[in-house]
C-alpha cells in the first residue's frame, strides 16, 4: 500500500499501461508539452514521444473521432477531454460511432478506447464548464461509464478501462484530484460494473458515486456519533450498474437516500430509485429520497454556486428526515 493522490494514481496507472502495452496512445489538448490541464500526463511526452502522446488541435470531435478510428485498427487510445462539458462537442463520435460500431458492423471490430474527463462544479467555472452530464452517457448501450471516488479505485478501474475492449467513459472530478488514499501496490485490475460498500452500516443506505461519495462518508461519520449507522454504497460504475449491491444494502437497512451531483430530474438518482422500487420495495420503510443539484445552469457567483450544489448539510437534513419519518430513535 502507498498513500497517494487521486491525480498521482491516475498518472502512475496511465504510465504503467503505456509501458505494458505499445498499443496504448494518448490524445488530447495540452497533454504533451503542458502535461495536461490537471497534470495527469506529466512526463509522458518526454518518456514516450510524440507518436504516443499526441497534442491535438482544439477540436474535440476531431480527436475523439480519430481515436475511434485508431481503436478500430487495434490501438488503445486514451483520450483526455479537458472537461466533461467539452465532450458535448464530440458526442456524435462517442454515442453514434464509438458506442455502436461493434454492433452495427456485425461485431467485426470493437472500439477499445477510453475517454478520460473530469466533471463537476464547485470551482467557479460557471454554467458551461461545471456540468455533470454522466447520465447522458450512462443511458447509452454500448458505452461503459465508470466514476471512481478514491485513488485505489481510480487505479483499478483505469487499468480495467484501458484493457476493456469496449469504449469507456472514465469520469474524473475536479475536486477529487488532490484527495489522498491508500493504493495497493502492483497491478490491480478492477471489475467494471461492481459497486462497493464504502462503509458498512445497518440503519440507512446512502448511494452515491464520484465526489459525492466523499460527502456521504463524511455525513456517515457524523451520524455515527448520534448512534445512527449509515451504510454508504459507492456505485463506481454507472453502466453497467450493480443493481444487486444497491438492493441488497437497502433490503438490509430498509431506508435509502441517493446523493448525486447532477440535476435531479432524470438524474442518476432516478435510476437508483427505480432500481430500489423493483428490487427492495417490500423492505422499504420510507420512500427513497434524492439529494441533487438545484435545477439551474450552475451559477458563476460563489455563494450561488455553493447553494446550488448538494452539500453535506443537505444530505444530513434529508437523512434526518427519513429517520424521523420512520420513527427511528436517536
Amino acid at each position, binding site marked *: 500500500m502507498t498513500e497517494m493522490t487521486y491525480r498521482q494514481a491516475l*498518472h502512475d496507472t496511465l504510465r504503467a499501461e503505456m509501458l505494458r502495452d505499445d498499443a496504448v496512445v494518448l490524445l488530447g489538448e495540452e497533454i504533451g508539452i503542458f502535461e495536461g*490541464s490537471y497534470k495527469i500526463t506529466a512526463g509522458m511526452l518526454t518518456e514516450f514521444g510524440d507518436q504516443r502522446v499526441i497534442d491535438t488541435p482544439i477540436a474535440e*470531435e476531431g480527436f475523439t473521432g480519430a481515436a475511434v478510428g485508431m481503436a478500430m485498427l487495434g490501438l488503445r487510445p486514451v483520450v483526455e477531454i479537458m472537461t466533461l462539458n467539452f465532450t458535448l462537442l464530440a458526442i456524435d463520435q462517442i454515442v453514434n460511432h464509438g458506442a455502436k460500431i461493434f454492433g452495427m458492423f456485425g461485431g467485426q471490430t470493437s472500439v477499445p478506447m477510453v475517454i478520460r474527463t473530469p466533471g463537476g462544479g464547485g470551482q467557479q467555472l*460557471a454554467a*458551461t*464548464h461545471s456540468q455533470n452530464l454522466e447520465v447522458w452517457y450512462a443511458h447509452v448501450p454500448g458505452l461503459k461509464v465508470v466514476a471512481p471516488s478514491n485513488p485505489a479505485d481510480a487505479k483499478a478501474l483505469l487499468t480495467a478501462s484501458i484493457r476493456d475492449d469496449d469504449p469507456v467513459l472514465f469520469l474524473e472530478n475536479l475536486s477529487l484530484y*488532490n484527495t489522498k488514499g491508500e493504493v495497493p501496490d502492483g497491478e490491480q485490475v478492477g471489475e467494471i460494473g461492481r459497486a462497493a460498500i464504502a462503509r458498512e452500516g445497518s440503519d440507512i443506505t446512502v448511494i452515491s458515486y464520484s465526489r459525492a461519495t466523499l460527502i456521504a462518508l463524511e455525513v456517515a461519520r457524523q451520524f455515527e456519533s448520534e448512534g445512527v449507522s449509515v451504510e454508504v454504497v459507492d456505485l463506481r460504475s454507472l453502466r453497467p450498474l450493480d443493481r444487486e449491491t444497491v438492493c441488497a444494502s437497502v433490503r438490509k437497512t430498509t431506508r435509502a437516500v441517493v446523493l448525486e451531483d447532477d440535476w435531479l430530474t432524470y438524474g442518476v438518482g432516478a435510476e437508483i430509485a427505480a432500481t430500489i422500487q423493483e428490487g427492495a420495495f417490500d423492505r422499504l420503510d420510507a420512500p427513497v429520497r434524492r439529494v441533487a443539484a438545484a435545477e*439551474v445552469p450552475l451559477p458563476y457567483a*460563489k455563494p*450561488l454556486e455553493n447553494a446550488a450544489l448538494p452539500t453535506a448539510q443537505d444530505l444530513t437534513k434529508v437523512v434526518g428526515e427519513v429517520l424521523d419519518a420512520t420513527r427511528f430513535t436517536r
Partner: protein
Amino acid sequence: MSDQDVAPVPERDLGEISSPHHHETVAPGVPVRDVTDGGPEMVQFLDADGKRVSRGNCEPYEPILEGLDPETMRSLYRDLVLVRRVDAEGHALQRQGELGLWPSLLGQEAAQVGAGRAMSTQDYAFPGYREHGVAWCKGVPPLNLLGMFRGVNHGGWDSNANNFHLYTIVIGNQMLHATGYAMGVQRDGAVGTGDPSRDTAVMAFTGDGGTAQGDYNEALVFASVAHAPVVFFVQNNQWAISEPNERQFRVPPYQRAKGFGFPGVRVDGNDVLAVYAVTKHALDEARSGQGPTLIEAFTYRMGAHTTSDDPTKYRVSAEVDLWREKDPIKRMRSHLEREGIADPAFFDGIDAEADALAAEIRTGCQNMPDPELPTMFDKVYAEQHPVIDRERAELIAYHAGFEEGN
C-alpha cells in the same frame, strides 16, 4: 466561468505530481521559432519604430488612412492606453482574490482597438473571452466586464445596448452565432441599401487555436454560401495556451479563407492603424453586400493564457522579449511624436486619465454586492414557470429553516 479555461479553461490545478520524467521547462523538440515574422503579405503602416510605411498588400487600405485626422489618431492612442490599464487592473484584482479569473489582452491592444474602432455603432460583435479592448470601443463599461469575472451577475452587460455580445468560452461557438446573426441582418434587409446608418455588419472574434474547431470551419462555410455580412477576426497571438501555431495548422488562417470562397488578409496586429484600415475596409465590403472577409491579426499574447496559467513552462522568454520590441502602444506613441500630432502634455493627460480610471474600477469592483441566492432561478427560462417557482420557494424555505435553527 473561469476557463481554464476560462476559464476560458478550468482552473489550472497545478497540484504536485511526481513523475520520473517530469520536465520543468520547454519540451524537447520544440525549436525557438521566428514567431515575429508575419511574412511579405502582412499589411503594415507603422513599423516597430512608429515610422509610417506601406508594407505588404496594403494598397486597398491606404485611402482609409488618408482620411484619418489628428484627433482620431490621438483618440486611438488614448484607447490603447486605457484598455491596457483596464486589463492590468483586471489582472491585479484577480490576483487579490476579487475576480474568479482574468484572461489578459496584454500585447493585443492594437488588434482589438483597431478592430473595435473600425466598427459602426450598428455593427454587432461576437467576442471570445479576451476581447476587453473591443468591449471598450463598443462602449461596454469596464466594470461590467469585471462584474462578470467576479461572478456577481449573469450576463455582465446588455448585449443589445452596445451591440456587443456576451463572452463565449467554449472555443469556436460564437463564430456560428455571428454568422447566423449576419444572416438575420440580411433578412432584415440591412445590407447593401447604401444608407450608412442602416447597413450593418457583424464581427466574430476568435484565436489561432479556435481555427481548428468544427464550429469555426462550419461558420466559414455558412458565411460563404450565404454571402453573409460578417468579418471573421482571428487574433493570432501565436499560442493556444501551450500549443503553438505549429500544432494548430500548417497553412495560416488568412490563406485558408480563399478555400472557403472569400478574401483573407493578414495584418500586423500590433499596428493600430493597419488593423483599423483593414477592418474598416472589410466591414464596408460586408455592409455593402460584398460578403465575408477573414482578417488574421498577427500579434502576441504577452502574458499568461489566463491568471491560472504559467507560460514559463512552455515558452522561452527570448520570444517574449522579441515581441516586447513590437509593443503596440510604444509604436503609436512614437508615431504621434514623430509626426508632431501630440505633445508631452497630451501623453501626461492620458496617463492621468488612466490612473483615475484604474482607481474608479478598483473601488467599483470591490463594492459590487453578491447576488441574492433565489436569483439563480430567475433566468432559467424566459417565461416563468410553476415548477421553477416552486423550486425557488423551496430554496428560500430551506435557507430560512437554517436561520431559525431548525
